[in-house]
């Protein structure tokens, strides 16, 4: 985006103190007072955000870390028993549990699959959007925004209904087409079940990606594409060497967000399985929730949650480095 060059590196124009005296006295005030307010103003602006985040995020994060080294269950919650420090006991229990590793692998596969499908479909739809007639574009936009705006819980109930064993419209459609899907239960086999959950997640995530990328595509300078075409580039080469580089900052942002969101998928699995996901349906999120609020072992749940955060940070670090590299974070 052109903004990269124009905004990022330019130092700010002499920070004048906020709300202070309007026009007069421009020249003399400049020196010391302005320099002071110049350093203080951004921090003052940041202060409310930092306070709020310290309370609702900082403290819980610290508590999450300490909990995972403690023994904290129902009796500690009610204060019947003191909290004990356990060292790494929780972690060694979790890490030596093969069930945990199954859950980790399942979560990673699910996340990568969902993000890949979301990004590819989103880009394809965005490119389609700039090629269709305006009435089709309007139609597609309505469909995109409608599915984007659908609350996740609503989407889950609708998908449950569409894939219902007895009266689901999907089974009916597939049977009509000639396949034997009469009374087919999609959730007996967890692979099929997860396929549907992934369709649900991707369906909900694609609109944001497609609409954002479409907005980005309309900003791709036409002169660049034309120049490339004049130099003999075909449609694919224009796409590969002009469109993609221009869109890259947006793509990176969207991919980052998608990884965060898809790794944090909870309600889709939890509600799809009626509030009690079977072992083969557990993702890291539901697994940690189960340990904390079903088994009432808050410290074990915290240990799993902490490991999830660490795993996620590992995945995200790659993207963060790239964002720093391309100057998105300046």
């Amino acid at each position, binding site marked *: 985006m052109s903004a990269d060059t124009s905004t990022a590196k330019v130092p700010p124009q002499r920070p004048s103190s906020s709300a202070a005296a309007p026009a007069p006295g421009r020249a003399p005030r400049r020196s010391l007072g302005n320099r002071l307010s110049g350093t203080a103003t951004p921090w003052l602006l940041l202060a409310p955000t930092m306070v709020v985040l310290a309370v609702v995020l900082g403290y819980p994060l610290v508590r999450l870390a300490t909990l995972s080294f403690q023994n904290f269950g129902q009796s500690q919650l009610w204060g019947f028993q003191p909290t004990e420090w356990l060292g790494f006991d929780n972690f060694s229990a979790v890490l030596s549990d093969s069930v945990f590793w199954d859950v980790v692998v399942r979560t990673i596969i699910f996340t990568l699959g969902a993000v890949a499908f979301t990004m590819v479909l989103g880009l394809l739809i965005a490119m389609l959007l700039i090629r269709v007639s305006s009435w089709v574009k309007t139609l597609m936009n309505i469909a995109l925004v409608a599915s984007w*705006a659908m609350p996740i819980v609503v989407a889950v109930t609708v998908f449950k209904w569409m894939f219902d064993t007895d009266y689901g419209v999907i089974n009916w459609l597939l049977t009509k087409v000639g396949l034997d899907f009469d009374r087919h239960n999609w959730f007996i086999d967890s692979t099929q079940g997860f396929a549907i959950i992934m369709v649900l997640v991707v369906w909900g995530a694609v609109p944001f990606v497609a609409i954002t990328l479409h907005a980005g595509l309309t900003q791709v300078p036409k002169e660049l594409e034309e120049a490339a075409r004049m130099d003999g580039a075909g449609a694919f080469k224009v796409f590969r060497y002009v469109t993609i580089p221009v869109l890259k900052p947006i793509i990176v942002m969207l991919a980052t967000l998608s990884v965060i969101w898809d790794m944090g998928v909870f309600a889709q699995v939890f509600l799809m399985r009626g509030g009690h996901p079977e072992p083969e349906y557990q993702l890291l999120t539901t697994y940690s929730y189960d340990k904390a609020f079903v088994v009432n072992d808050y410290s074990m749940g915290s240990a799993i949650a902490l490991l999830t955060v660490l795993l996620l940070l590992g995945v995200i670090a790659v993207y963060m480095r790239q964002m720093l590299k391309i100057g998105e974070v300046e």
Partner: protein
Amino acid sequence: MTDSAAPRETAVTELPAKAAPAPKIKAKAPRPKGRSLYNLIGVAVAAILGFPVYWMVNTALKPDKYAISNDPKFLPFPITLDNFKRALEVSDFWGPVFRSLIIAGTTVAIGLVVGLLAALAISRFAFRGRKVVIVGILTVQMVPLVAMIIPVFLLLNDLGQYNKLSGIILTYLTFVLPFTVWTLRGFIVNIPKELEESAMVDGCTRTGAFVRVVFPLLAPGMVATAIYGFIQAWNEYLYALQLLSQTNTTATVWLGNFTTTRGTEYAPMMAGSTMMAIPVVIFFLLVQRRIASGLTAGAVKG
């Protein structure tokens, strides 16, 4: 590429065009070649994407005996509102909806005010530690909500905020606030500094330049951010499930529990889903143009 969508495009460029001279050569006449194939694919994509929404409404409007049928009908005929009545009867509907509105509205309002200040700080000021703050906000946004539920639950328990709307509003800021800061920063960065600079050359203070020049250009972005934040808060399920009691719950949890009250009654359930989703969808459709343009539009291009 050849972008013809005339009314929409002009409407979009209108906003920034007022603030800056946009000497842009409009694309040549659209090439019809291949257009009809694209249109066909486009219609198919729209049909597939829109199907779940359509099926929800369709089921909700059908009489019960046609809704649950071995041979589903694709048009709701005869149309009935019985399912909606039934959904409202099953349990309290308006209580959870009002609670959801209050929670989401308050969260977004606080998030927008607080977040705008922070976004300004990191996008318009150069100061030591700025990069650390940005990386911090990005990192904070990556912490999955689910991972935080245990300590947040214990925190609200300690503060006596369990089962209180104020408590849940506070916790919703964990995801609304970082998102707001980051998104608004993106919008502000896309507003060229030159506009502010020229206003300041003309005698505006920094604050004046912001209020008169940046803020009007930022307004669509703020609307977009607010709506997205609102939807996120409205959609939130886990915190509402775990931090509010069954009698004090939000619309999402109300719908999530719909299944269990009387087995699975799909037709009223779809009616309940429709009531929850349609207002949001319509609201969203109305402002969608701004959202799409706001995300990447800048005033001075090239």
